[in-house]
């Protein structure tokens, strides 16, 4: 008697039916979960207990899996840097000479800028606290672009915090738990970031599409951007602080504007989470009102005395108008705060962010 004629010959049909029923039940469960997830708001979903627990469980596993690769990469980097040390030393000396000149210029401009801000009573942005973190997982598929960091709520990392590398913005936090945080990258298809073109001050929305270079959408005006323009965060909507470097504008094969991200220059290993939440962090009203002018230099004091003596001698109608002098970037402020007319709006050029070399 062959096996098929035996007592097990009827087993196949019931099991096939049971298997089909199991598949249908599993499918219904999946659809139910999907619908429930779509109903909930994104924040509710992200901060759900399931995702939090999952990320917490995943973090040590991912860190362990990445550790050997990291060690090998560091060892290879050490060997490569040792071999090319002489050449690198020469290049760095050249760069240091250039950077020293720039440093002096930046110091002078910062000083001038602080004075203008103080005189105009501008709402300047104080330095924000940051938290250093290490990337332990790198999800880079076409449907999701995210990173897992090894710091979390215990260090004050919160949903919405921007994340930057040494080159520029990489994304923002979309989920935190103890010891772990998830970053949604600028390249994720669901990422939307308000940005500005540094040269023209034109606004746009940086839209991820799963590729390496996210798109610039909703650009307005005539020629708002050109190839190589530096793109910064605009701060609109309060998602990001204004002026964080993002990348440079490039045109793709189809004529669409994209941004080549600064953060894409090197593998993401260590990053910084900027503990920025919204505009309310920028300063209290008392702090903003209590702005103080920087002290005057001796030459400025002499000029002030001369101006005051001229005012006392001349009739009031012949007083010089101080406003035009403030519009010139190199002009010295002639008088103290009350004599300065209020600026109509905070000029964007007064608070530029240093753009890194791409």
């Amino acid at each position: 008697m062959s096996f098929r004629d035996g007592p097990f010959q009827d087993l196949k049909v019931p099991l096939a039916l049971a298997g089909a029923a199991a598949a249908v039940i599993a499918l219904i469960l999946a659809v139910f979960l999907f619908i429930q997830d779509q109903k909930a708001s994104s924040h509710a979903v992200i901060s759900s207990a399931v995702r939090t627990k999952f990320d917490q469980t995943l973090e040590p596993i991912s860190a362990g899996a990445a550790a050997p690769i990291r060690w090998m990469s560091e060892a290879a980097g050490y060997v490569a840097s040792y071999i090319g040390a002489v050449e690198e030393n020469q290049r760095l000396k050249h760069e240091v000479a250039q950077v020293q000149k720039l440093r002096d210029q930046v110091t002078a401009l910062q000083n001038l800028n602080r004075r203008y801000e103080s005189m105009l009573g501008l709402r300047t942005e104080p330095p924000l606290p940051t938290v250093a973190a290490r990337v332990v997982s790198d999800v880079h598929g076409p449907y999701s672009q995210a990173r897992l960091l090894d710091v979390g709520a215990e260090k004050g990392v919160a949903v919405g915090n921007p994340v930057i590398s040494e080159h520029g913005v990489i994304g923002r936090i979309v989920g935190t738990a103890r010891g772990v945080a998830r970053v949604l990258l600028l390249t994720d298809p669901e990422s939307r970031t308000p940005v500005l073109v540094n040269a023209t001050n034109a606004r746009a929305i940086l839209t991820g599409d799963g590729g390496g270079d996210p798109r610039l959408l909703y650009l307005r005006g005539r020629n708002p951007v050109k190839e190589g323009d530096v793109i910064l965060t605009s701060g609109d909507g309060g998602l990001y602080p204004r002026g964080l470097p993002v990348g440079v504008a490039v045109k793709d094969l189809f004529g669409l504007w994209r941004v080549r991200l600064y953060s894409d220059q090197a593998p993401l290993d260590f990053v910084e989470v900027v503990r920025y939440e919204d505009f309310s962090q920028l300063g209290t009203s008392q702090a903003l009102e209590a702005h103080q002018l920087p002290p005057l230099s001796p030459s400025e004091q002499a000029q002030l005395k001369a101006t005051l003596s001229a005012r006392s001698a001349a009739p009031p109608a012949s007083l010089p108008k101080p406003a035009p002098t403030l519009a010139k970037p190199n002009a010295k402020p002639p008088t103290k705060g009350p004599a300065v007319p209020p600026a109509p709006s905070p000029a964007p050029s007064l608070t530029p962010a240093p753009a890194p070399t791409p």
Partner: protein
Amino acid sequence: MSGPSAPLRPWVWLGIPALMAMAATLVAAIPLRFLGLRLPEPVIPMVLAFAWPIIRPSLLGPFALLLVGLFLDLFWNGPLGFWAFALLSVYSITFLIRNLIAGQAVRVLFACYGGLSLAVFLIAYLRLAIRSDAPPDLVPITINAICTLALFPIAHHLIERFEDADIRFR
């Protein structure tokens, strides 16, 4: 009971491959770049969704696939249930046509695997386009699809390894 007539234990053909698929997904997400390129990140559990129903009908298979799909959803930060649904759809369709394709030539199996995988990628693309109000970039999706299709030999190996392992389903 052991030997060739022993029933196939679910742990061997469901548990271990599922764990290996999840481990491989984790490894593919290591932050590593070589010559400026990152590791490809294919949908590795697609192999299971295609191979399991051909190997044999199972009560545990769909639920194991549901768990693997939920793992993908959580790991890739997608909507919960999407990849579970996608994988189970492939499983269900393959289950329906298993009598037609079981024992067929390799190219027939590959055509079925490729067709089902591409259908899933198309659905995923459309879902993302609708959800994000902007068409996603086709280049990474194409690379992802090609990498997933390149996993067919693993699916074929699984089928060859376990299809005849249980004499009740010969």
